């Protein structure tokens, strides 16, 4: 079998083309958002929102409305609930997030288990990208496009929010609105990603691409581009791996992203682990060659010279 037919064969099936489109849309939207989420320190929030949408999806299927409406309402609701509990207690943020999302996830499980015939829990939890209908494809594409458009339109404000919230406030930007906007976009991208990889793994698409890109560059714009390029590669190779190796699509896509992250973590230059080790060894060898005398004079030169200012010592 030549390469071209190897590549085109899966696409003869309509369901696989739809799967590829849905996965690509979800992966790109999530990757773009992930750049801000990892810089805000909101990775756990992505996990929380994705789990919290379960009751929304279950209820939407029961009532017969598009799954995305139910999922978005519960995702946004979870965010609001977390915000409200945080504002009214002295609990740490991760504690509040943990309490709220597990409660909603359990509620979702309870709803699903009480109506076993109507909803396939496995599909919601682990994705059912091979069974995506045209209607669901359109939901994903439209929501994905809206999310992407809003993110890119507000990207400089969001970057400022992530970098220096106080300065944003000082210049009269509405930081509360921007935070709420980013959380709303997070909920939207969870909804978009659900179909592709399911509730459990959607958070991987919201963290890993941004994290991988962060390791590769020190420029935010380049980070955005890299996250999108890498996630596109992961999505396509995941779909093909799933077809030819006959493994779960969601798992294959997320595993591809993890493999790329691992490769970057180990081998990227100059910050990859392998290169850093090599660099260290080279330095150590050079050190040894220079001998003890040089080593000693070097150490004394490095001794920290502390400025003696006439500062009054502060007391806590």
């Amino acid at each position, binding site marked *: 079998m030549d390469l071209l037919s190897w590549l085109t064969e899966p696409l003869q099936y309509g369901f696989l083309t739809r799967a590829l489109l849905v996965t690509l849309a979800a992966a790109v939207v999530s990757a773009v958002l992930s750049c801000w989420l990892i*810089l805000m320190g909101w990775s756990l929030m992505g996990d929380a929102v994705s789990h919290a949408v379960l009751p929304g999806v279950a209820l939407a299927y029961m009532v017969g409305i598009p799954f995305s409406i139910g999922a978005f309402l519960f995702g946004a609701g979870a965010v609001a609930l977390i915000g409200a509990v945080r504002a009214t207690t002295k609990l740490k943020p991760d504690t509040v997030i943990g309490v709220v999302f597990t409660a909603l996830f359990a509620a979702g499980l309870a709803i699903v288990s009480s109506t076993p015939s109507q909803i396939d829990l496995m599909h919601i939890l682990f994705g059912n990208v091979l069974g995506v209908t045209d209607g669901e494809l359109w939901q994903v594409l439209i929501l994905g496009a809206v999310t992407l458009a809003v993110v890119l*339109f*507000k990207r*400089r*404000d969001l*970057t*400022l929010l*992530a*970098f*220096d919230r*106080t*300065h*944003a*406030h*000082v*210049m*009269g*930007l509405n930081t509360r609105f921007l935070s709420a906007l980013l959380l709303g976009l997070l909920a939207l991208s969870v909804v978009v990603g659900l179909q592709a990889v399911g509730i459990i793994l959607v958070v991987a698409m919201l963290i890993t691409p941004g994290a991988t890109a*962060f390791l590769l*560059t*020190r*420029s*935010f714009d*380049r*980070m955005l581009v890299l996250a999108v390029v890498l996630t596109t590669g992961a999505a396509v190779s995941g779909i093909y791996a799933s077809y030819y190796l006959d493994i779960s699509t969601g798992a294959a896509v997320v595993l591809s992203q993890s493999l790329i992250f691992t490769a970057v973590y180990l081998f990227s230059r100059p910050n990859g682990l392998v290169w850093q080790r090599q660099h260290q060894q080279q330095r150590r060898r050079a050190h040894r060659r220079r001998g003890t005398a040089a080593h000693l004079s070097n150490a004394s030169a490095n001794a920290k010279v502390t*400025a003696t*200012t*006439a*500062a*009054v010592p*502060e*007391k*806590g």
Partner: protein
Amino acid sequence: MNLHVLAQDPVQDPALRISGLTVAYSEVLALDAVSLTLDAGLICGLIGVNGSGKSTLFKALLGLLEPQAGTVELFGMAHRQARRSGLVAYMPQAEDVDWNFPVSVNDVVGMGRYGHLGSMRRLRPADHSAVGAALERVGLEHLRKRQIGELSGGQRKRVFVARSIAQEAQLLLLDEPFAGVDRSSEATMTALLRELRDEGRSVLVSTHNLAGIPEFCDTAVLLHQRVLAHGTPEDVLTSGNLARAFGTPGTDN
């Protein structure tokens, strides 16, 4: 633009007018009926121990917290209006900044222009030249492409001064700007801030480095929940006042 507004007013509003400002965190009183007026065009040192209310005062000036009582006016305006007009700039403490954030020196200074821009915050040629001029002013134009974490302690501080210059702010609030900065960088910074003062800007600096104050500041405020003293550095930094503000060894505040 802002200079123009100020120039129109022959009797210039004070940079800062605080009256009866009271802030409490649950049961703990952080600021107790603080009243203070700072004239424009001066450098004022805000002195006090940790927990004396310096940071709380800054937060109140920036509208980051709701005081229990009292009012704050910046150039005769409520803080929201002053912020919207881009009159106030804040330099964060070094430990509050994510130095690994993927932004360049140029990006950070460009953020000073956001108040002047449309909703997409796209920098126009005039903004780019304002950013370039601000960087030149603080001597960092050759490092403009560096990621901010790749700068020395003193250079990092100057990036934020450049940002407030690009912003055309008239009141600079600096929180411990000399912490973790070596002597020569501190000298560069104080010279720079004095230049900005000479152009009519007002500067409020919180610091616990008393040695530099008489030389650097025009006025000083000694804070310990209340204003203990306010005046020229010589009047404020008396041993009696310092004993009241910093306490005697053994008595913790």
